[in-house]
C-alpha cells in the first residue's frame, strides 16, 4: 500500500491512459500550463506536450462539442469543465450530440469522450460554484455517469471511462481532492456499473456515492456503537447503476437509506428509491429515506453551507428512522 491523494490518483490515471493510448488527449481551461485549477492535470503538459494537452479559451459550449467531434474522428478526448456549474453552457454537445450519436446514426460509431468535472460544496464557493447536477445526465440515454468515492476508484474508474467507447461524465467531489488515502501499489481499472460494498452490515443499507460514502461510513461507525450494523454500498457509477447490488443488500437488511450531496428532490436518490419501491417492494420493512441537500441553492456563508451539506448526524437519524 502507498499513500496517495484523491486528486493525484486522477492525475495518475490520466497519465497512464495517455501513455497507453496515443489517441487520448486532454483539454480544458488552465489544465495545461497551470496544471488545472485543482492540480489534477499537473505535469501532463510536460510529459505529453502541447498537442495532446491543451489550455483552452473560456468557451465551454465549443469545448464540449469539439470533444464530441474529436471523438467521432478518432481521438479519445478528456475535456475538463472547471466547475460542474459551468456545464450549463455545454449541455447541447452532451445531450443532443454525444448522447445520441451512436443511437441516432444506427450504431455506426460511438463517441469515446470523457468529461471530467468537480461538483459539491465545502469551499464556501457559493451558489454558482458548488452544485451537484449529476441527476440531469443520468436521465439522458446515451450518457454514462460515474462518481468515485476513493482514490483507488478515482484511478480505476477514470481509466475505465477513458477506455469506454461511450461518452462518460466523470464527476469528482472537489472537497476530497486533497484527501490522502492508502491505495494498493498497483492501481487497477475498475469497471463502470459495479457497486462496491464499502462496509457490511445486517440492519440497514445505506446507498451513497462520491464524498458521501465516507460520511456514510462515519455514520455507520456511530451507529455501530449502539449495536446497529449498517451496510454501506458505494454506487461508484450512477448511470448505469448497480441495481442488483442494491437489491441484494436490501434483501438482507430490508431497510434503505440513500445519501447524496445533491439536492434531494428529483436527485439521483429518487430513482434508486423509486426502483426499490417497485422491484424491491416486497423486501421493504420500512419507508425508504433519502438524505440530500435541502431544496435551496448552495449558500455562501460557512455555517449555512455546513448546515446545508448532509453530514453523518443526518444519516444516523435517517437510519434510526428506518429502524424505528
Amino acid at each position, binding site marked *: 500500500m502507498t499513500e496517495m491523494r484523491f486528486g493525484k490518483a486522477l492525475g495518475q490515471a490520466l497519465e497512464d491512459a495517455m501513455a497507453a493510448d496515443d489517441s487520448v488527449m486532454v483539454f480544458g481551461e488552465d489544465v495545461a500550463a497551470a496544471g488545472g485549477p485543482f492540480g489534477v492535470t499537473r505535469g501532463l503538459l510536460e510529459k505529453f506536450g502541447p*498537442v495532446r494537452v491543451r489550455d483552452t479559451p473560456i468557451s465551454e*459550449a*465549443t469545448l464540449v*462539442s*469539439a470533444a*464530441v467531434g474529436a471523438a467521432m474522428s478518432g481521438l479519445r478526448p478528456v475535456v475538463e469543465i472547471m466547475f460542474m456549474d459551468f456545464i450549463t453552457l455545454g449541455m447541447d454537445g452532451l445531450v443532443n450530440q454525444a448522447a445520441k450519436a451512436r443511437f441516432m446514426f444506427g*450504431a*455506426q460509431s460511438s463517441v469515446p469522450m470523457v468529461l471530467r468535472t468537480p461538483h459539491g460544496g465545502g469551499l464556501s464557493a457559493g451558489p454558482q460554484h458548488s452544485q451537484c447536477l449529476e441527476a440531469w445526465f443520468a436521465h439522458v440515454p446515451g450518457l454514462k455517469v460515474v462518481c468515485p468515492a476513493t482514490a483507488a476508484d478515482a484511478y480505476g474508474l477514470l481509466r475505465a471511462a477513458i477506455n469506454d467507447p461511450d461518452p462518460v461524465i466523470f464527476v469528482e467531489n472537489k472537497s476530497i481532492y486533497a484527501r490522502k488515502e492508502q491505495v494498493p501499489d498497483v492501481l487497477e481499472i475498475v469497471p463502470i456499473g459495479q457497486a462496491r460494498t464499502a462496509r457490511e452490515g445486517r440492519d440497514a443499507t445505506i446507498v451513497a456515492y462520491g464524498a458521501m460514502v465516507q460520511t456514510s461510513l462515519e455514520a455507520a461507525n456511530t451507529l455501530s456503537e449502539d449495536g446497529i450494523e449498517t451496510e454501506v454500498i458505494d454506487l461508484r457509477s450512477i*448511470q448505469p447503476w448497480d441495481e442488483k447490488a442494491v437489491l441484494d443488500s436490501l434483501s438482507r437488511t430490508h431497510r434503505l437509506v440513500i445519501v447524496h450531496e445533491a439536492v434531494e428532490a428529483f436527485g439521483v436518490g429518487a430513482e434508486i428509491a423509486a426502483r426499490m419501491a417497485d422491484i424491491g417492494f416486497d423486501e421493504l420493512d420500512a419507508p425508504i429515506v433519502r438524505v440530500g441537500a435541502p431544496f435551496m441553492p448552495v449558500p455562501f456563508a460557512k455555517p449555512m453551507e455546513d448546515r446545508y451539506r448532509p453530514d453523518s448526524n443526518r444519516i444516523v437519524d435517517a437510519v434510526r428512522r428506518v429502524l424505528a
Partner: protein
Amino acid sequence: MMLLVRRVEERLSSLFSDGEVPGFIHLSIGQEAVAAGVGSALEQKDTVASTHRGHGHALAKGIELDSFFMEIMGRDTGMCRGRGGSMHVADMSVGMLGANGIVGAGIPLAVGSALAHQTRGNGAVAVAFFGDGALAEGVLHESFNLAALWKLPVLFVCENNGWSEFSPTSRQFVANVRDLAGAFGIESEQVDGNDGEAVALAAAAHVEAARAGGPRVLECITRRVRGHYEGDPQKYRDDGDADPQSDPLARSIARLRAAKVSDTDIQSIETDLMSEIDAALSAARAAPPADFRAARADVYSPGSAA
C-alpha cells in the same frame, strides 16, 4: 452531383406529399451548387458536419443512395436504421458526421473533428456547413476563435439563402461574414452560391489552405427555392419567384452545353440518374421497417456496461 441532389429532393418532395416520408423534411432545392461545389473539393478522409438541410451535403460527400432513401423512409436498412431520418443522415465511413437538428451545432463538431485531424496529423480537413440563421449562435464565435487560435484545418461554409425559417436574414443578423471572420484573422471569401463552378474553385482553394493549417470561411449566396420545410405555405414570403437564370442546375447544364456536351449525353446522365433513384426508392419501399429492439440495444456500445 447537382442533378442528383435535385432529382432526389424532387422525389422526396412528392413522396412527402404522398405521406411516404414522415416527420419534417428540409429541402435544399436551389442550393445544390454549394453542396456539390464544396463536395468536389473534398477527399474521402475529410469530414463534414452538416445542418437540418443536409441531404445535398450528405450526397456530395458520397453517401450511398439506397440507404439514404431507406433512412428517410424509416427503414431498418437505412444508414441510421430509421432512427434519425432526414435531419440526421450520416455515414461515418465517408466522413459524413451527420445532418443536425440543432442549428449551429455542426460548427463546433467540425472544429473538434479538425482538432482530431490536426492531432493525428492525417492531413484531413473538416468542413462545417451552416445557414445564415446559425450566424447568430454563439458557438460560431467560439469556434472561429478556437479554430484560429489553434490553426485548425477547418473550412466554415455559410450557406446564405437569405432566410431563417420564416424570417429574412436582415431581421436576424447585423454583421457580415467577412468582417466577422476578419476580426479573428480568418480569411474568407463570398461566392455566388448558385454557380457550381465558382463554388468548386473557391472551395478547392480554401480546402487546400485549411489543409496546410488554419481555418477559412466560405460564404455562398444562394436561394431557398422551397419553403423552410415541405408543407410550409410560405405566406410570409414575397421575394418573387426564383430567377430561372440563377438556378444552379440550369446554369451548370448551360455550361455543359457550352462545353459542347451533347443533349443526348445530358439526357442519358439524367436517365441513368432517374433509374438509380427509382431503384433506390423501390429498394426502400421493399425494405423492412425499423427495428425497435435493435434500436433499444444500440444506446450504448455492445459489451460496455449499461
